[in-house]
């Protein structure tokens, strides 16, 4: 918390900085969040010095592969991280003037499902198979609002309409197993939005769905966001999804944010070798152009994590400097930052090629 000044630039990741929203403080501002698992080697945090912010009506995408800490980060924000083994060792998360990380369990429970809500990847495991859809949506409404059960059911029906579920009256009395994966995900969204949250965290909301259903759900989420002005953090590994929905992007690798910026900057002017390698790894939808670029090897286990930049062992550009010293999240352009000693690469690594 003492390093606030050093991290100041990141609070403004609103692109050019000229946009109107720059004046308005972000809804959620995470600064220097570090999370440690008990038993992990000394100095290796599963999430390390992560900062980002989201404004009203905007979408931040956190991209990364398994184990990069993206889900742990979101669970920490929701207060769903089990302690032990996980411990938040540093950082603040200011949500509407309050630090989420210092709230009592009771205060967090009051926020959860009310002003902030979450959607998970697997809708079947997040729904209770023993209760009807209507009961489950109404439960959250009754918990946070002074309404009768009947009023809550009425609201649940409204929500099912809002997420465009066909025959909502009938579906209200259906059980989760009677619905398809896409319909269940719509129910999850209805449940999350039932109390008009200001912030929605969606953890891989379309990964388990077929591509035509994924397109339906992404369109639905975008439309609802326009209607309600909810801010969203979308966690995904799919660069295509990022390009479709993000305003801002944070690329995570092994617990660090390695690059962050407006979505156009990330896709059109990527700076970090990991971001570039990731883009080269995705097969193009156009005509084939030779072999895919690959990123060598895999994420090292915690005990072998380098002291400096954690991408060092896999990075083609790395050297001893990278292995020993962690590069800062350096500014490329206002709002666009990369954690690499050699960015921009063509200037610092181009000559030798």
């Amino acid at each position, binding site marked *: 918390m003492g390093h606030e000044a050093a991290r100041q630039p990141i609070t403004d990741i609103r692109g050019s900085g000229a946009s109107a929203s720059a004046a308005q403080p972000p809804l959620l501002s995470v600064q220097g969040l570090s999370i440690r698992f008990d038993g992990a080697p000394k100095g290796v945090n599963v999430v390390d010095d992560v900062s980002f912010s989201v404004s009203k009506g905007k979408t931040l995408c956190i991209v990364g592969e398994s184990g990069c800490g993206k889900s742990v980060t979101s669970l920490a924000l929701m207060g769903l991280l089990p302690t032990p083994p996980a411990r938040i060792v540093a950082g603040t998360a200011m949500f509407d003037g309050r630090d989420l990380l210092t709230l009592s369990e009771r205060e967090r429970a009051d926020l959860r499902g009310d002003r902030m809500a979450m959607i998970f990847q697997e809708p079947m495991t997040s729904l209770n198979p023993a209760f009807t859809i209507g009961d489950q949506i109404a439960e959250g409404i009754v918990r946070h609002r002074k309404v009768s059960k009947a009023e809550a059911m009425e609201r649940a029906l409204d929500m099912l309409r809002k997420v465009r579920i066909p025959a909502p009256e009938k579906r209200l009395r259906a059980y989760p197993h009677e619905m398809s994966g896409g319909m269940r995900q719509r129910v999850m969204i209805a449940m999350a939005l039932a109390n008009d949250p200001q912030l929605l965290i969606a953890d891989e909301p379309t990964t388990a769905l077929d591509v035509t259903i994924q397109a*339906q759900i992404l369109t639905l989420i975008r439309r609802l966001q326009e209607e309600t002005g909810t801010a969203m953090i979308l966690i995904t590994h799919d660069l295509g999804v990022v*390009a479709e929905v993000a305003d801002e992007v944070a690329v995570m690798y092994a617990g660090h944010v390695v690059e962050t910026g407006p979505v156009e900057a990330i896709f059109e002017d990527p700076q970090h070798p990991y971001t570039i390698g990731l883009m080269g790894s995705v097969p193009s939808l156009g005509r084939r152009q030779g072999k895919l670029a690959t990123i*060598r090897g895999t994420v090292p286990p915690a005990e072998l994590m380098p002291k400096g930049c954690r991408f060092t062992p896999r990075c083609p550009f790395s050297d001893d400097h990278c292995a020993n010293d962690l590069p800062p999240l350096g500014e490329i352009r206002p709002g666009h930052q990369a954690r690499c000693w050699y960015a921009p690469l063509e200037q610092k690594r181009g000559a030798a090629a």
Partner: protein
Amino acid sequence: MTLTAATDDIILESVDLKKHFGSGGLLSSPTVVRAVDGVSLGVRRGETFAVVGESGCGKSTLGRLLLRLIEPTGGDVRYEGQSILKLNKSELRKLRRELQIIFQDPYASLNPRMNVGDIIAEPIWLHKLAGGKEKRERVTDLMRTVGLLPTHADRYPHEFSGGQRQRIGIARALAGDPKLIIGDEPVSALDVSIQAQIINLLEDLKDRFGLTLVIVAHDLAVIRHMSDRVAVMYLGEIMEMSETDALFDNPLHPYTQALLAAIPVPSPSNRQPKALLHGDVPSPAAPPSGCRFHTRCPHARPVCKEQHPALEEAPDGRRVACHFWREIQGAGAGSISAPPPSPALAKRLALYQTWRERQDKAVTTSP
């Protein structure tokens, strides 16, 4: 494309292949799921043939039928011109050597109680290809071929990451010197960077050993990258079959068009509203009458509900099962144009590739 060989050199063929699951229990009314319903296709020697479709379309069942891992309800499968349905046990065992499969979930398909060396050695032992020292050498070779360290032969599957486990599965598939490998979603459980490694590995192995690949997958980008020809399945039937580039540049069937339109395009500047398919895939236990796609098709007309369209010939050796494909073709829907990478990205990707090759060289030259 590797079509220098005679294009009619068919290695594996299915003829009106059917698989229906289930029937009435003692107390329940009969429900029959028509997982695969009359599929005819021919896989050419040396090509990569892809089967694509959404969950429940029958693509995995088709993959298993082609290897006779499950028995079909009707139709025939021919390998090298001979039906594999009439083979006896010993003939089938020989066939198993030549036709191999790689599964989606590499962990579930490896025996957790066997070490990796034994897992890879099992087919060699089973088919009596080698013994003793020679067998061990072959295992070492195979592990090196797929990019595993031979010193890890005494480790167990749980000690490996997902990508490494998939490499183990590939090594095991290669152990019997197969002619054809079916990959059932071979990369869809893997992270993007690992997925690219496995795709490149499969392509290298295909060239090196002269394999024929059949890839069953749902990721259209992967399919476009890897395959020579594609069959699009929906509810147990083939909707369209074509050379890959032709299919992506000019999809004929409305389902193919919808499938392509639904892919998120990795370019934020090209965001545009999409023509979406409505609803879910109907249950394969009660497929719609006539054309099975008519309930979701934006171009459906009354005849689609009544008449089942045949998989008819279209120009350039393509096949399409739609009454109105000629008219729909002009609608301009579907064809997918991925924008070229921005100049900055292209430049950096090239730089990345240069350094990446150097990185590989440094590894091979240093001990």
